[in-house]
């Protein structure tokens, strides 16, 4: 068997270009005759747009043309990809979403005008000469205030600021209320899941190009899913058929969800390139990113847990307000509903659950998926609540969890999903070992000697990944399928090019996907190249998010490779004059069982393309296969996390001293890459728990508009992490037995951090039940003062 198959920590091949400055990110692309666009954005949250006077600006040096909302009257709005149905069976309220504002502006950062010029500086200079007349309107920022009678409406043509009022599972509502009424104990918690700004390190970039000779448009863009952008922008916004539109997402510098969505700037650059017959480039500044990239989270929740006299969970009821921002971003409505409500069972066998979500329009940037997307919000509620319950009941928080764990699989939850496999006690056992929980009390005493309070926080998590079965999500309101595709092209001399619909923007697919094909055929991974990111040479795919790449994209690649092997076996049988049933493939060699006959992989591939001695009456020449894989179910990664913090009682400053994570990802392709995914997720979770918050003032002004105000985790905010994924219950319904690992860290880590801080404060005699994230020194110190 060659090195570098499944299970090997193969070094990443993509690293060499990134380490030598030879990557090809979208901003590195410059086209002949290129122009530059600068977007003039609203500096007020809500107002009537009375006039946009571009006269002076148009006379500025280097200006080519200035576009306003009037230029986009014939152009479609940005589409929403998911329609949620409310409790009464009615569709959600769905406002129009213009590329450039018309009539009103509805959030700080909304595009008012676009200046195209010969240079970036010329465009920016001219934008300053545009005279915009806006009549300010009151802004709605607070979600509950937005739903009050008489509140200012974000969209005049909607009946209110309520996007939808969703109940799940509506038929369980009465049973849940009854169970809570009858409970021996009810624990209640009100909490905020803080609004975050994703902050992939590469800001968004779009370069539009138009070829007058062919009539083809091309968009280079920082996207996690170029085919989705091609479909949405082509079909719904610009009216360009897909065969005349190419979307390329080259090296992309991180996404975390924020680069899933179709943004106005992409449509603008593609539109303007055709209108001007010159390439049009936009490079976001970080400041623009803060006010135009979709934000994440932003839930306000009240949750109840009912327990019987033996501390068994009997019901969960949760009421959540979810911020949509001013417009519906591509997948926004699905995040607080189908990616959140369906996970409210967690790892526990609670018999009845009811989830209510009110999605609300406000004068803020649209909110959509951010790493974990709905599942961190579910996990945080549940795992904070269980910790609070354990404290109220005076029982061990780990024991309370273990007592209520789901232990038999498959398990159908009362919130409509079926966990295929898992072992939550195993990951908890492993956590107790790797986090050295036995040593905690000694470490706490050491901290106390330093005058610091030490706390231990534990939680479990489960997530639904491998998104998603198309038939199911279609019933739930998705306006897209969620399969994945792969084409495996075997070349005459045996090398392989795999074209995948998945997209890698940090996940290392070029390495790990090659490991899978290497393992299946038994040839070196160096003989396999992974192509992604260009709709011109990859089959229609849905891209990368929701920890779906290896589980769905990898499965498509396995299916295509299986077709390749089946055909290659027929060719090999012909070459060896043997029965196909007797031909085996091992280590890149076909042989006939029980004989010394064999042909090498390269002999078979050459025969496929030079078919002189070939069964042409049975099979076609060539060796190239495509497969589309639609998953039968979600996958359910799960695990247990432990965080130890020190709190300085003088200042309220929290320091994460130790962090341990045990994850069951099923089978693992490249352990090194999986470790890295978990590390990064944990840092984002620690960031959410202790540092990060997107803040608006009451007028809808964004207070956190740069790295001066928005606290990103730095190297000295986090410790080394102890991570383990040796507990493996393989997924039962995909060919690799994989579950996906991209989001786990961000889902599993926030509750353990907060649980640890509460534990530390309690150990110091402070009766603090909860503090909302981020747990800044000021919030912690204030809570300690009672």
């Amino acid at each position, binding site marked *: 068997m060659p090195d570098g198959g499944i299970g090997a920590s193969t070094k990443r091949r993509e690293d060499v270009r990134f380490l030598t*400055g030879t990557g090809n990110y979208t901003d590195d692309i410059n086209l002949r005759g290129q122009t530059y666009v600068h977007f003039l954005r609203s500096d007020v949250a809500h107002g009537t747009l009375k006039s946009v006077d571009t006269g002076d600006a148009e006379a500025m040096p280097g200006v080519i043309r200035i576009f306003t909302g009037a230029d986009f009257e014939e152009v479609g709005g940005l589409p929403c990809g998911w329609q949620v149905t409310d409790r009464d069976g009615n569709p959600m309220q769905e406002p129009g979403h213009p590329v450039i504002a018309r009539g009103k502006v509805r959030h700080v950062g909304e595009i008012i005008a676009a200046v195209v010029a010969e240079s970036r500086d010329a465009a920016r200079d001219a934008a300053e000469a545009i005279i915009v007349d806006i009549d300010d309107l009151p802004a709605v920022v607070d979600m509950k205030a937005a739903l009050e009678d008489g509140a200012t409406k974000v969209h005049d043509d909607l009946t209110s600021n309520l996007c939808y009022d969703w109940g799940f599972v509506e038929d369980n509502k009465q049973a849940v209320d009854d169970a809570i009424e009858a409970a021996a104990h009810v624990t209640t918690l009100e909490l905020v899941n803080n609004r975050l700004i994703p902050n992939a390190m590469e800001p968004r970039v779009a370069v539009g190009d138009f070829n007058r000779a062919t009539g083809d448009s091309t968009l280079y863009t920082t996207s996690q899913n170029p085919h989705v952008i091609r479909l949405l922008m082509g079909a719904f916004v610009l009216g360009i058929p897909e065969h005349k539109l190419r979307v390329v997402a080259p090296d992309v*510098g991180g996404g975390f969800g924020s680069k899933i969505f179709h943004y106005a700037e992409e449509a603008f650059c593609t539109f303007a390139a055709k209108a001007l017959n010159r390439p049009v480039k936009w490079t976001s500044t970080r400041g623009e990113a803060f006010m135009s990239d979709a934000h994440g989270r932003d839930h306000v929740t009240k949750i109840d847990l009912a327990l019987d006299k033996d501390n068994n969970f009997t019901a969960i009821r949760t009421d959540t307000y979810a911020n949509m921002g001013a417009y519906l971003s591509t997948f926004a409505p699905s995040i607080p509903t189908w990616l959140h409500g369906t996970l409210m069972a967690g790892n526990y066998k609670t018999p009845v659950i009811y989830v209510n979500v009110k999605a609300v329009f406000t004068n803020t940037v649209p909110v959509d998926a951010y790493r974990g997307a709905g599942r961190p919000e579910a996990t945080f509620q549940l795992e904070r609540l269980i910790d609070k319950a354990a404290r109220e009941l005076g029982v061990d928080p780990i024991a309370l969890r273990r007592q209520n764990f789901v232990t038999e699989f498959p398990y159908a939850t009362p919130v409509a999903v079926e966990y295929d496999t898992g072992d939550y006690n195993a990951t908890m056992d492993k956590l107790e070992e790797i986090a050295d929980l036995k040593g905690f009390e000694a470490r706490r005493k050491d901290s106390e000697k330093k005058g610091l309070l030490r706390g231990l926080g534990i939680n479990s998590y489960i997530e639904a990944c491998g998104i998603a079965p198309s038939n199911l999500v279609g019933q739930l309101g998705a306006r897209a399928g969620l399969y994945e595709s792969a084409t495996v092209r075997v070349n005459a001399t045996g090398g392989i090019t795999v074209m995948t619909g998945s997209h890698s923007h940090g996940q290392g697919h070029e390495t790990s996907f090659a490991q899978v094909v290497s393992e299946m055929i038994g040839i070196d991974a160096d003989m396999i190249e992974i192509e992604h990111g260009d709709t011109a040479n990859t089959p229609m795919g849905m891209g990368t998010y929701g920890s779906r790449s290896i589980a769905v994209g990898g499965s498509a690649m396995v299916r295509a490779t299986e077709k390749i092997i089946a055909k290659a076996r027929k060719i090999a049988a012909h070459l060896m004059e043997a029965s196909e049933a007797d031909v085996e493939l091992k280590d890149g060699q076909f042989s006939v069982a029980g004989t010394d006959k064999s042909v090498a992989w390269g002999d078979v591939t050459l025969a496929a393309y030079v078919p002189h001695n070939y069964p042409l009456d049975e099979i076609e020449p060539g060796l190239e296969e495509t497969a589309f894989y639609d998953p039968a179910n979600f996958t359910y990664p799960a695990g247990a996390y432990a965080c130890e913090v020190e709190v300085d009682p003088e200042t309220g400053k929290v320091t994460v001293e130790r962090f341990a994570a045990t994850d069951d990802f099923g089978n693992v392709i490249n352990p090194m890459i999986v470790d*890295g995914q978990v590390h990064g997720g944990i840092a984002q979770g620690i960031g959410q728990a202790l540092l990060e918050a997107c803040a608006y003032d009451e007028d809808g002004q964004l207070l956190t508009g740069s790295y001066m105000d928005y606290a990103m985790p730095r190297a000295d905010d986090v410790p080394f992490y102890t991570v383990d994924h040796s507990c493996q219950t393989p997924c039962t319904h995909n060919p690799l037995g994989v579950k996906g690992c991209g989001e786990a860290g961000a889902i599993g880590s926030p509750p353990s951090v907060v649980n640890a801080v509460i534990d530390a404060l309690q150990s110091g005699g402070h009766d603090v039940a909860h503090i909302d994230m981020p747990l800044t020194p000021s919030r912690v110190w204030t809570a300690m003062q009672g």
Partner: protein
Amino acid sequence: MPQVSMTVNGKNVAGEIEGRTLLVDFLRENLGLTGTHVGCDTSQCGACLVHVDGKAVKACSIFAGEAEGAEIATIEGMGEADGTLDHVQQAFQDHHGLQCGFCTPGMVMSAHALLKENPKPSEAEIRHYLQGNICRCTGYHNIVKAIMVASGQDATGIAAE
């Protein structure tokens, strides 16, 4: 238009600039050295970090004109003469110190500058030094580890993976 000349990765270069042209824009746009990245507008992310006369400088924080006559090193100039990765780059690859790669050039340049000042930095010193380099992917674990290894230290005792 003002002229500027400097040495970049050992080669003499010159170009026309506006007075307001930042060094990072001169490197990226005039010289086509796109390995140096721009991740923010407030000189905090460190993706544009280069060496100016041997010192770590964020190339978005100085004008190109200020680098007149200076010796600049960028990520494209790193690595061994035979084209292989240098010990810092190699440690980053060996220990998975990068994911999307966008912050990576700045991280590598920062690591080189640190090791020049402090050849055997402790974990705490590395973390402190990297305050001006933001990474959103790795959680810093493997970056810190890679720098420890690049400085010849044993990183096997680091929290189990």
